[in-house]
């Protein structure tokens, strides 16, 4: 069969799964007074459609910021405005000021689901398809199976089409940026990334690799000649795209400051709920939130994040390569997720999508990571009554990865891109020979553990004294995994085999 018909089938299957998931429940369905993310998005449509742009981010009598106030950058607001415009055409009740609060109906759900579906179809899916076609040194079939695995990644599907969010837009834009950079269209890439950043501030997790890669590229060209020109062009492009996005708010400084305050709510605390990062896990032992003052918490998290980012960023700046760039995207996003301030469980998607990009290089580890990341979302999904789609799409994803990459046979040090690392350890460690078997058993153990916890969490009621036992267990298990993954990605990145001679620099 031709490449194109296979790709069409892949996309159709991905769309079918997305729509099937969207038949289920959404966040905060029928749960007044605050509802959930679904109501937040609907409320933003209401606000952006009815209020003048200067009031969007301000607390007024028409805009109670405590009730799902707009706290995403301008592009999200514009997107909400466009959706609201269409909603108004279909049924004005959906976006009526004040009276539409908590509006829920079958047609409205259909409309909201369609907006996500369309956004996904227009932004994320084409980026994935083009990315997979542009993969080098891979057979047509491998490209298709990569696309299939990426598009069937359950985390993103469940959050966007189940829980209800528009992550596929910001992540898709970031993907477009990666795609442009891999074709050496640096300016276009930075425009795409600026758009992503202006859609969702969480894209900052990806900003350092972009910055370091482009900076390194300028250095490589020589800072006195072409490099400087490129740098100037890039800076100009970024400024212009930011200015374009913020134009309506640029009228006075107070507007901009207010938007920024809304985007980075420092007073919300170190972490929320039970997120699988280091702070939440540590607080099992020490109640960090109570022991340290919020200011210190901020500084501490900033310092730790910065330190954990440093090696990858330096390496990327010194040796900018596309492969290193992708790995840096993963490890930087993961560092942010683990160590930074005010992390949501959904932010793991910012790590997962870059991991998807390297699924054809390290299929085994990528699959493992993607499974863990989906698992870490389980408490959220349970709250949204999305157990069924979770229980179906996750094993299905594992099956697809098993079938298309036969991952269990690719666990040698070489397949994990650890050859250089293991060579440098030679003489010190003697277990290298049984390495593939150990890794495989660890994987199976981890999958079994996640499966068991999923079943327990879904079926068994928690003990009376520890109502949060189960979400905490999920967070701890995932956090442990993520720490190991961070280590692994950093090792692969730093021991990149192409740069043997320069390893000492680091």
């Amino acid at each position, binding site marked *: *069969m*031709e490449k194109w*018909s*296979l790709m*069409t*089938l892949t996309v*159709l*299957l991905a*769309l*079918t*799964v997305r*729509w*099937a*998931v969207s*038949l*289920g429940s959404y966040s905060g369905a029928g749960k007044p007074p605050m509802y959930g993310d679904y109501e937040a998005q609907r409320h933003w449509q209401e606000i952006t459609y009815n209020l003048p742009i200067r009031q969007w981010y301000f607390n007024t009598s028409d805009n109670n910021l405590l009730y799902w106030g707009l706290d995403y950058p301008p592009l999200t607001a514009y997107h909400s405005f466009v959706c609201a415009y269409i909603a108004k055409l279909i049924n004005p009740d959906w976006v009526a000021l004040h009276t539409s609060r908590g509006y829920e109906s*079958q*047609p409205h759900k*259909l409309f909201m689901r369609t907006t996500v*579906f369309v956004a996904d179809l227009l932004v994320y899916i084409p980026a994935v398809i083009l990315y997979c076609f542009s993969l080098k040194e891979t057979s047509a*079939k491998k490209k298709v*199976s990569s696309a299939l695995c990426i598009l069937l990644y359950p985390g993103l599907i469940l959050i966007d089409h189940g829980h209800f969010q528009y992550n596929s837009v910001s992540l898709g834009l970031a993907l477009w940026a990666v795609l442009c950079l891999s074709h050496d269209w640096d300016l276009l890439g930075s425009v795409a990334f600026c758009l992503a950043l202006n859609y969702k501030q969480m894209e900052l997790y990806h900003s350092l690799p972009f910055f370091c890669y482009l900076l390194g590229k300028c250095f490589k060209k020589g800072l006195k000649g072409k490099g400087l020109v490129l740098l100037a062009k890039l800076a100009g492009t970024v400024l212009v795209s930011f200015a374009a996005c913020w134009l309506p708010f640029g009228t006075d400084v107070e507007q901009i400051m207010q938007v920024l305050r809304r985007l980075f709510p420092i007073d919300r605390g170190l972490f929320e709920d039970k997120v699988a990062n280091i702070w939440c896990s540590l607080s099992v032992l020490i109640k960090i939130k109570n022991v340290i003052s919020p200011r210190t918490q901020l500084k501490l998290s900033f310092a730790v994040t910065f330190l954990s980012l440093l090696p990858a960023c330096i390496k990327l700046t010194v040796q900018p390569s596309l492969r290193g760039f992708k790995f840096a995207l993963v490890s930087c996003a993961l560092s942010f997720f683990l160590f930074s301030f005010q992390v949501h469980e959904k932010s793991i998607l910012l790590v997962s999508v870059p991991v998807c990009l390297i699924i054809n290089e390290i299929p085994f580890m990528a699959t493992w990571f993607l499974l863990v990341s989906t698992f870490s979302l389980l408490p959220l999904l349970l709250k949204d009554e999305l157990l*069924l*789609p979770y*229980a*179906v*799409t996750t*094993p*299905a994803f594992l*099956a*697809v990865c098993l*079938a*298309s990459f*036969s991952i269990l*046979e690719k666990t040698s040090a070489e397949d994990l891109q650890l050859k250089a690392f293991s060579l440098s350890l030679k003489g010190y460690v003697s277990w290298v020979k049984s390495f593939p078997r150990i890794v495989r058993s660890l994987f199976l153990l981890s999958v079994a553990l996640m499966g068991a916890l999923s079943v327990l969490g879904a079926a068994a009621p928690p003990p009376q004294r520890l109502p949060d036992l189960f979400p905490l267990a999920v967070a701890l298990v995932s956090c442990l995994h993520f720490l190991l993954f961070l280590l692994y990605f950093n090792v692969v990145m730093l021991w990149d085999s192409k740069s043997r001679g320069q390893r000492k620099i680091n």
Partner: protein
Amino acid sequence: MAAGGRGWFRALALGVSFLKCLLIPAYYSTDFEVHRNWLAITHNLPLSQWYYEATSEWTLDYPPFFAWFEYVLSHIAKYFDPQMLVVENLNYTSRATVFFQRLSVIFTDTLFIYAVHECCRCINGKRAAKDILEKPTFILAVLLLWNFGLLIVDHIHFQYNGFLFGLMLLSVARLCQKRYLEGALLFAVLLHFKHIYVYVAPAYGIYLLRSYCFTANNADGSLKWRSFSFLHVTLLALIVCLVSALSLGPFLVLGQLPQVISRLFPFKRGLCHAYWAPNFWALYNAMDKALTILGLKCNFLDGTKIPKASMTGGLVQEFQHTVLPSVTPLATLICTFIAILPSVFCLWFKPQGPRGFLQCLVLCALSSFMFGWHVHEKAILLAILPLSLLSIQRAKDAGIYLILATTGHFSLFPLLFTTPELPIKILLMLLFTVYSFSSLKSLFRREKPLLNWLETIYLIQLVPLEIFCEIIFPLTSWKQHFPFVPLLLTSVYCALGITYAWLKLYISVLTERTPVRQKAE
């Protein structure tokens, strides 16, 4: 893609099962309540009441084995939600009930998966393709396991066709493997699960008679009368009688056989189902309507005398034709019989082993679909599924398959009329159609194109038809006055394609040259 061996089959079966699970929260039709009611009836009432109980309008109208099947299910159902087993709980739907019913369909589909596996085994893949995606067995497995019609009828609309077709395909596979007695047994059992399969019984009967009861042929391929085996006939008769006794015996003893029969064959229902299945009668009715309108326009007819019954109103009712003569059940029976006859003759006089049997099976199914009384649109699956087996063997059959499957599946669209399911049905249809076209095209890429230009245009026209029916029409003012227009268009347009495929298959079977030249008629 998969790691060698039979791994790909497992992946395909697993994949489609996951998809089925995802469809659990989707819309279900009144058939859901039908089966819930049957669960309740068989669970609570003694055998003697099964075919008399009429609290719900959805009375038990499947043969006894299916009732027993529901009986067995009901004993699992009580652990999910005992409330669903109360006969008076009409239209009862709890979350547990939905889960149980959906999962019961998904689990019984295991039989279908096994049957497909067996069918793939008996299609020996001589055409050793390097690429697994181009192996005939792989294509066949996808065409059967991922069949669009089965997916939407069973897992969205809600019915138990999966395991029934599993029984049928399994019996076909057994006949292909020359395990005749097993095949006959399976088919006899199937008949007592759902009697609609009686339409293809002639193919089974003649094939078994020709290749099992007569053990040898003459050198020129004609029948050797002397080789008749009394033993084989006795065995076959024994099987059929035993199965029937097991199924109908208890009711015979209770003296309820006439009641059971009257439930199974409700000739009180109209010529066509709620909306017209795309068969000959759809064309006939459409012609009648067109003539009526024409007659009224030209004042040949008196408008006051015309009965105001709308056939597409959604209720099963009898219908008086205004211009053309009305059709009686007997007439449809005769038409069906005449339509089936040539294919049966063909099977008898031009034996070609399993291939000929399959052709005859498909023709029987299609002919009865074309002319049967009160045919459901879902019955087209009875022709599409066996034709999948033929489609991967010859380019000619592949072409017919593409026409029949695409139009047949399209004609199932009105089954799902709820908006949330609109994208699902279109996506699944596209998925299946794109796959069947591209895989069969690549399988027969060395032969001439599978479809000629006229057929291609006909199939492409389905796209604007769908856009008109589902998107443009609801926006126009006609929606209030002529709500049945989309249904009418769909069934008439699909009827053309199905009639064409039926004729083409018939012609290709009748004119097929065999080593032995024998006139069919």
